[in-house]
């Protein structure tokens, strides 16, 4: 994940990219070679070239793609809490939950509120008798 410069940017699938969007980060090959630099305005030619190179996702400036049903921070946090609501006593899963929450907060540019993930990973619980079949 690239360093946060405070400017708004969005990771999108190449299939979602359209002419006129601006790259917020370099596009690199797996070997680290730069294919297309930060600041490039995307054209049809560039897009089809990237498609031929089988680039999957890119990072562009702004938030140009709105996914239907995109949720607010509060809703996303509530989703995570709800999803993990039955496993809060299982250390490795609690660790994952805290990691997700802190990533989410960071992504919303509120690093101060991100809790430090801290959990003892060695402890997991067996599914309780009523949980196992």
């Amino acid at each position, binding site marked *: 994940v690239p360093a946060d410069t405070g400017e708004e940017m969005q*990771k999108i*699938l*190449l*299939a*979602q990219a359209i002419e006129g969007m601006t790259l917020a980060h370099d596009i690199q090959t*797996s070997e680290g070679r730069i294919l297309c630099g930060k600041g490039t305005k995307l054209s049809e030619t560039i897009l089809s070239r990237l498609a031929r190179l089988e680039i*999957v*996702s890119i990072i562009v400036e702004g938030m140009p793609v709105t996914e239907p049903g995109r949720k607010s921070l509060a809703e996303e946090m509530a*989703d*995570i809490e*709800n*999803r*993990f*609501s*039955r*496993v809060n006593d*299982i250390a*490795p*899963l609690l*660790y*994952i*939950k805290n*990691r*997700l929450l802190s990533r989410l907060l960071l992504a919303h540019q509120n690093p101060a509120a991100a809790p430090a993930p801290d959990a003892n*990973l060695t402890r*997991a*619980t*067996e*599914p*309780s008798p009523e*949980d*196992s*079949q």
Partner: protein
Amino acid sequence: MNDSLRDSFKKRLREVKNLPTLPGIVNKLTRMASDPDTTSEQMGKVISRDHILAAKLLRLVNSAFYGFPQKISSLSYAIILLGFNVIKSLIISASIFEIMESHDLELWEHSMGCALACNIIGKRLGIKEPEEISTAGLIHDIGKVAIKIELPQQYHQILALIDTKQIPMWKAEMEILGFDHAEAGGWLAKYWNLPARIIEPIACHHDPRKAKKEQLASSIIHVGDILIRSLGYGHAVDIWVPRLSQRAWQLLNLGRKDLDAILDEIEEKIWDIKGFTLSIQKKLENQPGLPY
């Protein structure tokens, strides 16, 4: 749940009346595989005669959940790299998941995500044949598709029960059918003559302690399923992250560093799967009037 009801459901599932019949090609390939003189070129040629199947197989083989560094463009090479059991499972999943693509894309995404997670865990642990692990991850929920297709009425009852009682899917399945989709998936995998290394992880993905021979593989699928659900790639009304088996976790023996590296890699590679799902979605939008 009385036994006779359970048996009748089990019988209906095993008849696999409504699931697409496995392409005749599977039998032909199985016969060829048992002949030591068969070459992978010959097998590749047989598959290539079905262009659509061949294209689908290559797409699956080249997807993130096998993680080969280079693109594989020939089927005979894919057979050498992945082994016949994996190719056979892929032919089965290509036909079964055809249904899923058109009416349960979420389950297909969950399945591919699980395959990816299993592959990454398998490689981290230095497993010898991570491709089989990925494949077991890919088809671990095949029992769900079978229940949905073969027992549609009961499937709706199961969904309703999850909603009213707020219980996980397998519990609702136990109440309505007397078995869960893991067990059902195990029967199907056995019926299709898949190897124990794939059958057991499917059948035991809710409780890997039940595995007799494939404890480690079953534990990887159990954890892979939980990881991908943790990240929000679950299925339908059963939204909760399942409870992690202590035995499975100990067997994998992953530290925080391992877990971080695994999650980082899943989060990065999940984009390939999102791309896969989006392209299916677009394809479906462009061809209205599908049979499902």
